[in-house]
């Protein structure tokens, strides 16, 4: 039985961004398809449209010649389209079996038999009666896959499935996927990891900035050709000159702890490190391991013990962000749209968020709009923000331009230390290059950076020293030239090296 899935002219527009621009694709069962693209290329939007989570503005989807009207995830399920998301949708405290039957209206008994036979067929071994929280990431993913298989899907979509898996689990997953494909299930595999595409897939569709760039046979491609298609331009390689780092200590963190009352936050456990002048300390890790909490503690959004943070011989652990800025520390948080800037406010108003006493934005409690405007114009020209209208609402800036504005706002006073968290997340290559060059320049001017990032390549490129955060604990601090991405991978997964 052949399955044919056809996407015709699908368009989805968000304010300020075209997520999918007239995308047409055709898939046939028996093959494994890769959907490749950078963060923000539009591949997640496309699969969310296929799984009924997002309704497209225009375009049609046909499954075996039938026009599908997918208004909800339930519609997708009814039409035999199964989807395994990057983030699992499982109830941690319920048992595996309860999780599997939760959205099914079949009889418990018959379902149990069905699940058993599926597990036997594909060599899955999972205890159905233990709570999901006791499972490893790979096992949880299998539960998600079984949940799709129960409905005997014609199409199975996997969204970045290996980001949480170990090597071993990844190869197991690939075996299963190949088996499903042989049995006639159409597999669409979404990723930005090129090696996996070469290893697993038969055909590859590349997306860039919402547009479909190419569809080709894997056998006609290699790693480099795919990379260039994905990125769209030859990457200018930025090389950081080995700077002469001084031995003057700028910031020292001692026995820093943070215990959260919120069960969804990560506790920080005995953090110790120091950064010298002109140095960039990179902090790597899989997201959700305490990076956001560490950033907040460093920025002063979460206060800590006064003596735990020593900056230029001042103890600043109990100061709020505004007070810390007076010591010439700058912050660039991860979330551009919800934290670092307010999209509904104008550019010059967003500039006023970073308010030093010496900048005189507010005199005696009154707004000094003239001063703020002058300052904003300077930021826009010095940091290449692509507009000359400081009355523009920030929501109309692209991600890259907004990040340049934020970086500019933080850097124009030439602070001694910049603490940034995923500064290039979701940006296009040009903007990433610009931000990276800016960060390198900071170090060249003998100023320091703490770079918290989930992008290992970025860390290896920019850092002088690297540490890994895992479950709220920092690994030992290593010199960047001794570190490889393999070593970081082990540490990020909670392993030990020598």
């Amino acid at each position, binding site marked *: 039985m052949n399955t044919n899935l056809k996407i015709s002219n699908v368009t989805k527009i968000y304010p300020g961004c075209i997520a999918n621009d007239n995308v047409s694709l055709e898939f046939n069962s028996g093959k494994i398809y890769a959907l490749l693209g950078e963060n923000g290329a539009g591949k997640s939007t496309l699969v969310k449209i296929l799984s009924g989570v997002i309704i497209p503005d225009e375009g049609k989807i046909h499954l075996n010649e039938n026009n599908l009207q997918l208004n909800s995830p339930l519609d997708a399920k009814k039409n035999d389209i199964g989807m395994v998301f990057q983030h699992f949708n499982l109830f941690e405290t319920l048992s595996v079996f309860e999780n599997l039957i939760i959205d099914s209206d079949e009889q418990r008994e018959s379902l149990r038999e069905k699940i058993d036979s599926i597990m036997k067929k594909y060599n899955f071994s999972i205890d159905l009666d233990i709570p999901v929280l006791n499972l490893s990431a790979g096992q949880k993913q299998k539960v998600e896959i079984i949940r799709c298989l129960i409905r005997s899907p014609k199409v199975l979509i996997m969204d970045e499935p290996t980001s949480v898996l170990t090597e071993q689990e990844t190869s197991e997953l690939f075996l299963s996927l190949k088996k499903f494909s042989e049995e006639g299930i159409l597999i669409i595999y979404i990723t930005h990891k090129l090696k996996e595409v070469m290893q697993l897939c038969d055909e590859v569709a590349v997306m860039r900035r919402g547009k479909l760039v190419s569809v080709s046979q894997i056998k006609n491609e290699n790693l480099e050709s795919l990379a260039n298609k994905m990125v769209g331009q030859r990457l200018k390689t930025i090389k950081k000159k080995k700077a002469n780092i001084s031995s003057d200590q700028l910031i020292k963190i001692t026995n820093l702890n943070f215990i959260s009352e919120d069960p969804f936050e990560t506790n920080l456990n005995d953090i110790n490190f120091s950064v010298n002048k002109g140095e960039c300390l990179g902090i790597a890790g899989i997201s959700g391991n305490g990076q956001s909490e560490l950033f907040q503690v460093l920025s002063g959004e979460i206060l800590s013990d006064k003596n735990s943070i020593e900056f230029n011989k001042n103890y600043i652990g109990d100061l709020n962000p505004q007070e810390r800025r007076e010591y010439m520390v700058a*912050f660039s948080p991860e979330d551009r749209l919800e934290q*670092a800037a307010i999209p*509904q406010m104008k550019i010059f108003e967003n500039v*006023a*968020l970073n308010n030093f006493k010496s900048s005189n934005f507010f005199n005696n409690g009154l707004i000094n709009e003239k001063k703020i405007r002058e300052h904003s114009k300077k930021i826009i020209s010095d940091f290449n923000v692509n507009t000359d209208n400081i009355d523009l609402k920030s929501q109309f800036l692209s991600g890259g331009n907004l990040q340049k504005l934020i970086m500019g706002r933080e850097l124009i006073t030439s602070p001694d230390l910049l603490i940034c968290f995923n500064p290039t997340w979701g940006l296009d290559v040009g903007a990433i290059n610009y931000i990276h060059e800016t960060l390198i320049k900071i170090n060249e001017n003998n100023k320091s950076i703490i770079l918290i990032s989930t992008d290992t390549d970025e860390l290896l490129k920019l850092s002088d020293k690297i540490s890994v955060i895992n479950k709220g604990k920092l690994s030992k601090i290593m010199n960047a030239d001794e570190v490889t991405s393999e070593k970081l991978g082990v540490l990020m997964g909670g392993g030990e090296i020598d």
Partner: protein
Amino acid sequence: MRLPLRNLECLWGEEKLIKIVKRDQPSRAIFFLTPILAIFLTLVAGGLIFYILGFKPFEALKFFFIVPIADNYGLSELLLKATPLCLIAIGLSFCFKSNNWNIGAEGQLTFGAIVSGGVALLFYDQEGFYILPIVILAGAIGGMLYASIPAILKTYFNTNEILVSLMLVYVSKLILDYLVVGPWSNPEGFNFPETRQFSDSARLPLLFEGLRIHAGIYLALAAVVISWFIFYKTFLGFQMKVSGFSLKTAKYAGYKGKKMIILVFLISGACAGLAGVGEITGPIGQLHREVSPDYGFTAIIVAFLGRLHPVGIIFASLVVAITYLGAETAQIFMQIPKYTGQVFQGMILFFLLASDYLLFFKFKFIGSKK
């Protein structure tokens, strides 16, 4: 933002004539037009209700909205009702702009009335120019004290200000009830639940002979001007704006969130307290059980109808004040219960919230496919 219902997109069968499209950004013009649309829809719906009740819709609406303000007395009554609404709504806009949901203005008004009334009673047999300022100040302080309770509980104990401020309304009303029945009741009052009359020195001066409109309106106008200045010209106003959009950003910018929460509650409480003073030292002249016909609650509608903008609030308070007057006229001339006024207030808020949909979505006429 929620996605619109898919089936709404197709209003006339298969051939779509109208499509509902999300706006790129909330429309500024629509932002100020929807209140007018809401008032219009309220009139239509109100007319329909009157029709169903067996009245001639236009005549009934005329009794409700035109007859009450057709003469000087009516206009004076309109301003009399609009004054406390405007004053309280201005105060509330400080809270609402910064994401603090104080819905207990009625309680703050009552408590302000109690404190200022208590002070006025101390001077009941004295005259002097200094009495009125003291009484007014006492009312503002009373309102601030009462508003500080939900503010402090919110900042230091993480309680929900909506619940606390609402519950405190009933507490303040019971305190007032106890005072006017018990310790403060008029010794010569034949056990009526009311206090002595205040002395003339504790009364707000009347603006015109024979009309009830009093000097309290200056307090309201001053509040409008001061609030406009604070919102648009000061660091405090900027902080409120930022906090209103995103508390995360306010924290990142290093604004002292707790101080600001307490401050906006105090401002809001002071305004409500002043409204209470205006009532008891203006038209009422003593304390009794009913110092306010729910001005504190109705002002929430006024604040939103006025889009939390000082000038908008002036207009909104006039519109909503008519519903109070209209309800009374309608009761007298048409024997409709005066609670119809609340029905109209409810409808205004309902239609305003409903038409806010237009802020985020627009109708697009795409014509027949044929």
